[in-house]
C-alpha cells in the first residue's frame, strides 16, 4: 500500500493548524520585507501570527500615538530596526505648536530594556532632544543607522554624542530638521579608529565643520557610499573629499560659489571625472553657471538629480540634462521656467519623478516660475512620469487633462496652484475637471494633493474614481459638507486625509464615523467643525483619539484644528495644555 495511512492520519490529526514546524514557517516569513505583507500574514491564524511576530526584524509605526512601545516590544521580541513617525504632516508648515508631543524618549527607554541590540532607528517628525541622542548613543552598543527627517528639539551636541559613542555606526542621515546648529565640532568627535561609516548626510547644517577631520574621516571610511555635505563645504574642499572617495554613489555638494583658480577648476573637474558610480547628485547650493560644467563628467550614470536649491536658468538646466541620459528623478526650482521644463521633456525620456519647487513662493508680485505650459511639455516628453510635485501660479483644466492623458500612470499627483482658490486662468472656471481627469485616468493613483478653485464636484469625482487613493490633501476647496462626505464614502483605501481652510462642518466630520478606524489619521484645520461635533465623534468612536487645538482668540465653540487618529492605547497622556483630548469615556 502507499504511505503509512496511520502515520498520515496522525500527521493530519495534529492540533496544529499549520503543517510546518514553527521554524520552517518563521524562516519562510523572515523573507517577507514589506510590513503590509507581514500585517496580512499575521492575520491568517494564530500560528502565523506568532511566527510572523518572531521573525519580524523591522517594525514600522506610522503614528507614534497609535500604539505604545511596551505593546510593540511585547509583540515583536526580536526587532533590530524601528521606523517611527510622529507629528501630523501639517507640522511641517507651522500649523502644529512646537510642544505638541511625539517625544522619542519614552520609546528609547523601553527599547533599551527590550531591544538592547537595536541597530537602526529612523524618525520622522519626532521631537528628539540631545539627552535622547546621548541616551541612544550610550545604550545601544550595536547601533548602526540613525536617520532624522523633519525632527526637531536637538542640537549639534546630540550629534556629537552619536559620533563619540556609536562605534559601529554605518549611517548618519540628518535631513531637513530643526536643529540648533551650535557648532561644527561634532564631526571631529568620530574617533580616529572609526571606519565603518557608509552614509553621511549633514546637508542640514550650516556651521563650519573641521574640514581636516572630515577629510580624514572620509579617507578612512572606505565603504562610504553616500556623502551629502553642507553649504559650508567649499568647492576646494569638495575636490579634496572627492579625491578620497571616488567610490561614492550619492553626492551632495557644498556651495558652488565661484572661487576657484583655473588650476583648481581643472583639479575639480578631474575629481568629478573619477566618480564613475554616481547615481545621485544634490546640494549645489548657490550653483552658478560657470561651475556647472565641472559636474558633467560625473553625470553619465545619474538617476536622481536634485537641483532644488540651485537657482538655475533654463539653458543651464538644459546643458546639465544633456549629460544625464538615464535620469529618473529630477527636482528643480521654478527659476528654470517653462523653457527649462521643455528641456526636461526633450532630454529625459526615462523620467519617472519630477518635483518643481518655487524659488520665491511668498512674493506675490513675482511673475516668474512655471505654468501649465511647462508641465505639458514634460508630459509630452516623459511618458513614464508617475510622481509629480508641481508648484505653479496658473493652471488650466485642459492642460491637466492632456497631461494625464500623456502620463496615465501617475501614482502621486501633487499640484499646488499657489494662489488659494484660483480658477482656471483661461476659462475662469473651477479646476474641478482637472482633478476629475486625474482620478478618472490615473487608476493607480495613491497620493493626491489638490489646489485651485474647487467645488464639491471635485470630491464627487475623487470619491467615485480614486479607488486606490491612500493619501489626500485638500486646501481652500469645496463648497459644502458634501465634498468631504464624498471623499469619506468613496475612497476605500483612504488612510490619511488632511484638510485645511475648507467649508466642511460637523456633518462632514461625522459622516466618516465608520471610516476613521480604517485610516491612520484625519487632520482638519480652519474648517467649520465645532467642539460639539468633535465631542460627539469622540463619544461614538471610543477607539479614536480626537484632539483639538484652539487658536488664540477664537470662539469657544470652534474646533480650530482637529486631529483624529486610531489608537489601541487610548488618549495620550503627554498632551500639552494647548491640545484638548476629547474622550468618549
Amino acid at each position, binding site marked *: 500500500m502507499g504511505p503509512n495511512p496511520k502515520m498520515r492520519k496522525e500527521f493530519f490529526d495534529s492540533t496544529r493548524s499549520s503543517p510546518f514546524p514553527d521554524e520552517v514557517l518563521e524562516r519562510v516569513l523572515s523573507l517577507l520585507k514589506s510590513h503590509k505583507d507581514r500585517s496580512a500574514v499575521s492575520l491568517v491564524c494564530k500560528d502565523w501570527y506568532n511566527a510572523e511576530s518572531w521573525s519580524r526584524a523591522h517594525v514600522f509605526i506610522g503614528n507614534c500615538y497609535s500604539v505604545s512601545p511596551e505593546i510593540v516590544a511585547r509583540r515583536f521580541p526580536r526587532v533590530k530596526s524601528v521606523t517611527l513617525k510622529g507629528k501630523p504632516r501639517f507640522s*511641517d*508648515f*507651522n500649523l502644529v505648536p512646537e510642544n505638541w508631543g511625539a517625544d522619542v524618549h519614552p520609546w528609547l527607554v523601553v527599547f533599551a530594556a527590550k531591544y538592547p541590540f537595536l541597530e537602526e532607528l529612523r524618525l520622522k517628525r519626532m521631537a528628539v532632544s540631545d539627552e535622547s541622542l546621548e541616551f541612544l548613543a550610550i545604550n545601544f552598543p550595536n547601533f548602526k543607522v540613525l536617520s532624522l527627517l523633519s525632527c526637531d528639539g536637538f542640537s549639534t551636541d546630540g550629534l556629537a554624542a552619536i559620533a563619540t559613542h556609536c562605534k559601529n555606526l554605518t549611517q548618519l542621515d540628518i535631513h531637513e530638521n530643526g536643529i540648533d546648529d551650535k557648532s561644527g565640532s561634532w564631526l571631529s568627535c568620530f574617533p580616529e579608529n572609526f571606519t565603518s561609516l557608509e552614509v553621511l548626510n549633514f546637508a542640514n547644517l550650516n556651521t563650519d565643520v573641521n574640514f581636516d577631520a572630515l577629510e580624514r574621516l572620509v579617507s578612512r571610511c572606505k565603504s562610504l557610499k553616500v556623502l551629502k555635505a553642507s553649504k559650508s563645504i567649499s568647492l576646494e574642499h569638495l575636490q579634496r573629499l572627492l579625491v578620497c572617495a571616488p567610490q561614492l554613489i550619492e553626492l551632495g555638494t557644498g556651495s558652488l560659489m565661484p572661487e576657484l583658480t583655473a588650476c583648481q577648476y581643472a583639479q575639480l573637474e578631474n575629481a568629478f571625472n573619477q566618480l564613475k558610480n554616481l547615481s545621485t547628485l544634490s546640494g549645489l547650493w548657490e550653483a552658478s553657471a560657470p561651475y556647472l560644467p565641472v559636474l558633467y563628467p560625473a553625470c553619465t550614470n545619474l538617476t536622481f538629480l536634485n537641483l532644488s536649491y540651485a537657482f538655475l536658468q533654463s539653458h543651464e538646466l538644459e546643458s546639465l540634462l544633456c549629460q544625464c541620459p538615464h535620469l529618473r528623478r529630477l527636482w528643480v526650482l521654478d*527659476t528654470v521656467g517653462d*523653457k527649462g521644463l521643455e528641456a526636461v521633456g526633450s532630454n529625459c525620456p526615462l523620467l519617472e519623478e519630477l518635483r518643481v519647487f518655487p524659488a*520665491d513662493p511668498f512674493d*506675490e*508680485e513675482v511673475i516668474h516660475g512655471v505654468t501649465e505650459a511647462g508641465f505639458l511639455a514634460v508630459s509630452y516628453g516623459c511618458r513614464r512620469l508617475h510622481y509629480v510635485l508641481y508648484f505653479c501660479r496658473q493652471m488650466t483644466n485642459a492642460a491637466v487633462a492632456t497631461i494625464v492623458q500623456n502620463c496615465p500612470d501617475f501614482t502621486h499627483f501633487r499640484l499646488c496652484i499657489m494662489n488659494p482658490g484660483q480658477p482656471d486662468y483661461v476659462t475662469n472656471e473651477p479646476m474641478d475637471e482637472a482633478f476629475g481627469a486625474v482620478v478618472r485616468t490615473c487608476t493607480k493613483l495613491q497620493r493626491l494633493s489638490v489646489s485651485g478653485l474647487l467645488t464639491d464636484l471635485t470630491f464627487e469625482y475623487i470619491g467615485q474614481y480614486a479607488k486606490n487613493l491612500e493619501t489626500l490633501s485638500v486646501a481652500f476647496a469645496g463648497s459644502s459638507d458634501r465634498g468631504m462626505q464624498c471623499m469619506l464614502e468613496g475612497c476605500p483605501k483612504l488612510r490619511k486625509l488632511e484638510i485645511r481652510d475648507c467649508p466642511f462642518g460637523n456633518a462632514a466630520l461625522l459622516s466618516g464615523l465608520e471610516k476613521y478606524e480604517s485610516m491612520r489619521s484625519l487632520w482638519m484645520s480652519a474648517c467649520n467643525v465645532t467642539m460639539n461635533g468633535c465631542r460627539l465623534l469622540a463619544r461614538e468612536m471610543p477607539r479614536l483619539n480626537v484632539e483639538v487645538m484652539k487658536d488664540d482668540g477664537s470662539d469657544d465653540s470652534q474646533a480650530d484644528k482637529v486631529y483624529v487618529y486610531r489608537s489601541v492605547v487610548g488618549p495620550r497622556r503627554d498632551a500639552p495644555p494647548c491640545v484638548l483630548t476629547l474622550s468618549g469615556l
Partner: protein
Amino acid sequence: MSSIPKEHDYIGLSEAPSMEKISDKLSSSSSTLSTEENINSKSSSTSLNLKETELRLGLPGSQSPERKLILPAAGVSLFGKDIDTNSTNGYPLGPLKNLVSGVKRGFSDAIVGSSGKWVFSGSNGSEVDLGKGAILFSPRGDNGNSQKSCVAGPAKKDDVAQSPKPVLEKNSQVAAANENSSAPAAKAQVVGWPPIRSFRKNTMASSLVKNNEDVEGKSGYGCLYVKVSMDGAPYLRKVDLKTYNNYLDLSSALEKMFSCFTIGQCGSHGLRGQDGLTESRLKDILHGSEYVLTYEDKDGDWMLVGDVPWEIEPYVF
C-alpha cells in the same frame, strides 16, 4: 486722445490704426498720460511731446511711479541704424542719440521683483489677450498715433502699419490684475501656505537675499528682465538677460523675437508675406539697413550694445 506731434516718424508698424484704438481706450485713464520728466529731459530737439503720446498701462490714476524708481533706466532697443527723426518718410533715422531716447527708453526697466505693475507672464511672444488679465506690456512711449499722419512710402509699409491687432488693451480687467498684483503688502500671508517645509523656506530666503545683493538688488533670484522694444513694433518684449551667454545669443534671440515685425514674416500678423524673403535679419525696410541694439545707461546716454564685456553686463543694466 493725445495730441499727435507730426515730427514723429518711426516705422509705422502697427502704430497707425491700432494705436489709435488703444489710445481711445486709454483716454479715460490719466495714467496714460503719465509723464516722465526725466524722459522728456532727454529728448532731443526733434522729440515729440512724449508725455502725451506715451502709452502706458497702469492703475487708473497712477502716475507710474515705478518708472522713476527703476534705476538705472537702462534698456535695449532696436533701431534702424540710420535714423533721422526729421524724416517724413515714417522711419526713424539719424543718430541714435537723437532718437528721443526718452521715448525709446520705453523699454528695459529691469524688472524689480517687487514691481507690481509689469505683470508679465511667461515669455511667449504671442499676442497676449490682456482680457485674461495675465499680461501687461508697457509699450514704448510712443509716437504711435502720429504714424498715421506721416506714414508714407511703399505700399508694404502700409501693410506693416496695419499689422497686428492691438494687444494692448486697457480695460478694467487689466486694472484688476494690476490691483491684485500690486497690493501685496496689504494681503496677509496665509500660515503654512504654500506648503513648503520650514527648512526649505529658510534656506531659500537666505539665498534670495544673497542673489539680490549680488545683482545690485535688481533681480528676483538670478533673473534680469529687461524690456526690449523695436522701433515701430506694436508691443514690447521682455527678456531675461541671464538666459544668454553672450551678446551674440542675445542678439539672435531678439532677432527671432522681433522678426515677425519685419516685412515678409508672420503671415498671421496680417503682414503681406513677400515671396522669397527668407532673410530673418531685421531690416529697416526703407533703407535696407539692419537694426542695431542699443540701450540707455544710467547717465541717460544711448549706448551701443556690445562694448562692455558680457560678464559685467548685468551690472551695467
